[in-house]
């Protein structure tokens, strides 16, 4: 308490239109074109709010113009030794797959929730 609030790291998450799978936006700063990636590690991470808003605007525009993704929004992530980790458990499950049927899908890969 009383410390300065640091900007959280953020990424843009969405569902891919064609198959509904969870995707993340990757786009270089200043770029007008982004790519939607299937893995959180491939996402562009915004470490300040201005960059986060830039990414979100790009994602929303892409959703509207290209109609390839649904409902992009920002989630907070933290950098850990194992890689990026969403701060909310809902988003951790969303990124890593269900915590059941861990014999298949992306949840079959190593995880912690």
């Amino acid at each position: 308490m009383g410390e300065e609030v640091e900007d959280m790291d953020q990424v843009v998450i969405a569902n891919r239109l064609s198959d509904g799978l969870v995707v993340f936006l990757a786009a270089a700063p200043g770029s007008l074109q982004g790519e939607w990636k299937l893995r959180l590690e491939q996402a562009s991470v915004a470490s300040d709010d201005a960059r986060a808003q830039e990414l979100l605007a790009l994602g929303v525009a892409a959703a509207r113009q290209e109609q390839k993704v649904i409902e992009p929004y920002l989630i907070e992530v933290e950098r850990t030794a194992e890689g990026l980790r969403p701060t909310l458990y809902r988003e951790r499950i969303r990124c890593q797959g269900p915590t059941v049927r861990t014999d298949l899908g992306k949840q079959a890969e190593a995880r912690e929730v």
Partner: protein
Amino acid sequence: MYHYDEYDHALVQDRVAQFRRQVERRLAGELTEDQFRPLRLMNGLYLQLHAYMLRIAIPYGTLDARQMRKLAYIARRYDKGYGHFTTRHNMQFNWPKLEETPDILAELASVEMHAIQTSGNCIRNVTSDQYAGAAEGEIEDPRIWCEIIRQWSTLHPEFSFLPRKFKIAVTGSEADRAAVKVHDIGLIMRRDGAGQAGFEVIVGGGLGRTPFIGKTIRPFLPKEDLLSYLEAILRVYNQLGRRDNKFKARIKVTVHETGAEEFTRLVEAEWLQIKDSALKLPKQEVDRIARHFEPPAFRVLSKTAPATEARIARDRDFAAWVRHNVAAHKVSGYAIANISLKPIGKPPGDATAEQMDVVADLADAFSFGEIRVTHAQNLVLPHVERDRLPELYDRLAAAGLAASNIGLISDIIACPGLDYCSLANARSIPIAERITERFADRDRLELIGEMQIKSSGCINACGHHHVGHIGILGVDRKGEEHYQVQIGGSASEDAALGRILGRGFSADEVVDVVEKIVDTYLAHRNAGETFIETYRRIGQDPFKERVYGAA
């Protein structure tokens, strides 16, 4: 069972063709998501946490082997090799692709299935008793009436945009296996003083944010008046139901706010106007539908089942399966065999494609090709020769389908929760899995006896937690999964809402709490008493003391 006529086929195939064009336009970017969402929901296609989810109707829980094989095929070809049976006679696939959904719907149409009215503010899939047509003491096969309701409610223009979704359940037996009292309309078949069959009409039950047990607004309705009376109820609801607030839009709130007496008066007044209209069911039409539900060609069998009795005497596991999973059949020498989808440590209600194929084969080999789906997320082979139960059991066991726990503590209803659902606040399946692991021991299972645990991952209560003997509700508390526990609910003919025990628990604590509740029951019960009977006798305090310590 019912088979589509030309109108049914045309309707379902037209819808597939229409949806195929809509999907093409969406994928081409010609429709926005806002424009497309209502169209896909009209065809049962939701967008969930990880992917799309397709909800397929299994009308009144009746499937034949051919349809089950088709579900297995879809699971394998278009999904990840499994599907989930819900609490309302639906199958949900968790990973369908939008671009392949029209093909899935075409596959379903080829076996007389669809996903119409499995979402949206319309009359949903009518549910029923899984023992329909097989239960001892049943007044009539309720599926005849379910099918009549299905035909009336399918694409009913007046009731396509109700204030909120609308669910109807029908039972033909005294014993309520369809949770009829927590439906928007529940129908129980009754006989009047003259011995004529009809319906007790119950309205305004429901779970979710504001749970209610339904109120009987008519103790006896003659059968031929079924549709006009339902139409009268729906009309009153369609006018009075609140469209200003989604959380107050279900008929349970309308009945509560209007008062059951005034609501009944309005329904009866409306009914008088339409009672003798075209909705009055002509006998020949009822007979035509009824012919679809004529009993299969039962053989004349001996009352005794020597092979089954011998196996019971020497095989404890088989004996337990017969005791819990097999129910009495109305025809001598036959039995109803339940297939539990609640193996220890696995998601309740899930079945793999291989298991679906096995069930289809067993239905053909043992049950005239008939399968039923239960609201408790299990399956049933309704017509099995009692003396062939050992053979059936062995084949079920080989497929991992012989869990002997119907009605016991590990027969848990659980919604998909936060593992799949975008509305959920907490996970539900892992809690259920851990409870089944905690109570895996056969002797302890038997000792505890009849016990229903129901678990929901949010207040919408798809896991029926309000009517569980023990109900578990997942909530989000400051960014952590947290669970409220309630006890004393029932979904049966003695329907009751449970009461919250007290402050909630972490995911780590909740299984211990269930165990403390169970231990309290075992310490207090009189000989032969079930959990719910003990609870009703001693009340909540002893359970509270055990869970929270003395106040």
